[in-house]
């Protein structure tokens, strides 16, 4: 079941029942595989039922592709078990790291964009794609600082990585907006530098604002609706890249299903309008 270039939403346990009883007209669902790394019970029961009706995307947050010490075999195996069990249409991970030695740090931490990091990511992605026997997509992260010894801009690093590893790109438009504000770069220029054919999925989410010394930092907390400026940037991305499966992420302060569904319908309308205008 390939994923259509329509809106999907992040699947939350709070919404299992209403999705199964109301059969919403939604393109697809996405989950974090880490939330299903268990043997059985309700989570698998509901995900299995929803998977029977909708395409699925597995969006990992724990593989730590940027770890200099390499990947953990047990993490890869746990991911492979879910890929085999649910046969997802898309599998994605992040341009970040989250594991050091025996510690899982539960956040998408930034890397310096250096030749060394490019090699580390490239090796780890190779290993993942070989083990899973499929292509994965790599998502641009949001970040709160940059390192002064980075030798690539993030967009150049991401594109170079996709080209060397054969991975695709998951373009998170909210993350571009957040990082552009936090680091003072041009969000539209970022998108312009991404070759459309590398992009397999788009993400949209809400963010919040935090005051720090000297200015404001945008925080990618997935805790609210997509703001109008991010919707505009999304339009811009669609013009450059074309229509792609687009996910609404809403992971904190999770709203009623109808609110999330409405948000997905906005993305669906933009995709539909474009396909009628340009096709």
């Amino acid at each position, binding site marked *: 079941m390939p994923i259509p270039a329509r809106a999907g939403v992040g699947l939350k346990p709070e919404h299992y029942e209403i999705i199964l009883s109301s059969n919403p007209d939604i393109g697809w669902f996405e989950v974090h595989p*880490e*939330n299903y*790394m*268990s*043997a*059985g*019970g*309700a989570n698998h*029961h509901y995900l299995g039922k929803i998977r029977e009706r909708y395409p699925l995307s597995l969006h990992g*947050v*724990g*593989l*730590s592709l*940027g*770890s*200099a*010490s390499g990947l953990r075999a*047990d*993490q890869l195996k*746990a991911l492979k078990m879910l890929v085999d069990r649910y046969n997802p249409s898309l599998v994605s991970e992040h341009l970040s*790291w*989250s*594991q*050091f*030695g*025996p*510690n*899982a*740090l*539960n*956040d998408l*931490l930034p*890397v*310096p964009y250096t030749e*060394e*990091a490019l090699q*580390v990511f490239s090796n780890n992605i190779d290993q993942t794609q070989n083990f899973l026997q499929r292509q994965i997509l790599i998502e641009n992260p949001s970040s*709160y*600082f*940059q*390192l*002064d*010894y980075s*030798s*690539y*801009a993030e967009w*150049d690093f991401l*594109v*170079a990585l996709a*080209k*060397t590893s054969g991975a695709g790109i998951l373009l998170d438009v909210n993350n571009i907006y957040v990082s552009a504000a*936090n*680091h*003072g770069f041009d969000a539209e220029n970022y998108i312009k530098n991404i070759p459309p054919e590398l992009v397999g999925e788009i993400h949209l989410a809400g963010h919040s604002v*935090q005051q*720090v*010394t*000297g*200015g404001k*930092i945008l925080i990618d907390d997935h805790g609210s609706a997509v703001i109008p400026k991010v919707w505009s940037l999304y339009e811009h991305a669609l013009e450059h890249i074309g229509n792609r499966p687009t996910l609404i992420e809403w992971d904190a302060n999770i709203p009623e299903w109808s609110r999330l569904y409405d948000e997905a319908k906005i993305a669906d309308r933009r995709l539909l309008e474009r396909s009628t205008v340009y096709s």
Partner: protein
Amino acid sequence: MNAVPSIVEPTSKSPFSGIYMQPPSLNQYQKAFTENLLSRQLLSASSEEFLSHIKPMFGETGKEQEVSDRFTIYRNNVILSLSTAIADSFPIVKRLIGEDCFTRAAIEYVRTSPPEYSSLLFYGEGFIDFIRSYPACAELNYIADVARLEWLYINAFHAQDSAPLDIGKLQTVSPEDIGDLYFECHPSSHLLMSDWPIDAIWEENLKEEVGILDVANLPASKLLIYRRDLQVQVVALTTNCFNFLYALKKRNNIAEAWSYTLELQKSESRPELDESELGGMLGYLIGLSVFTEAQIKENL
């Protein structure tokens, strides 16, 4: 690859010491990041060099504070997300000790025992012993046992699925062979014993309005925690039934499990147990759907 480097700046001037520093390797960077992420405060030795490579964006004034603030966002995110995971796993412990006390305990715990796996479904077993010896909870003797109950609840929730025992199968067993029957219990099933009425405490604290419990005068608990269909059940068993099921779970057949139950009943000088009660006990346990398989042979 033929990417054009966009930002070339191989060395940098530290805003702290004014000397030029070589950038760290990726492994050194991740090591320093991790150390300073989980520490109570930024560690002066490793954080100074680490922070010296973070680019300030908001101008010269206060730039040292700015880079520290930027890094602190990650420190706060990680501690908050991990301590929230602990709170999600132990909601009743949180209610019993209060939000402030729980948050302090959870933060202390995640700093010293961060998770090993990125999946947090089973993160927090060590919190049971941690909360047992947490000074602020010293007077709540039962707190660690309540935490154990919540932990077993989570484990039962995510355990392997298994269909309940087909009762028809038991009807084919001839009466003289019943004693030789071995049972397989549902993969989610756990037995838990406590000197405290933790089932009553747990149940009371699931309610919106919590009443007062006379903890000292309520009976000790002997509990079966398991999943029936998708729902986790917490069932209080009689002492005899608890002992009987314990023996069955330890791969004893019915006859052996019953002898074990009688032995304990005698040694603990509890009221006499009549042979006729075995049938009722067995029927009760079968009715709970805690068994998934029954066979005469031991090699289940």
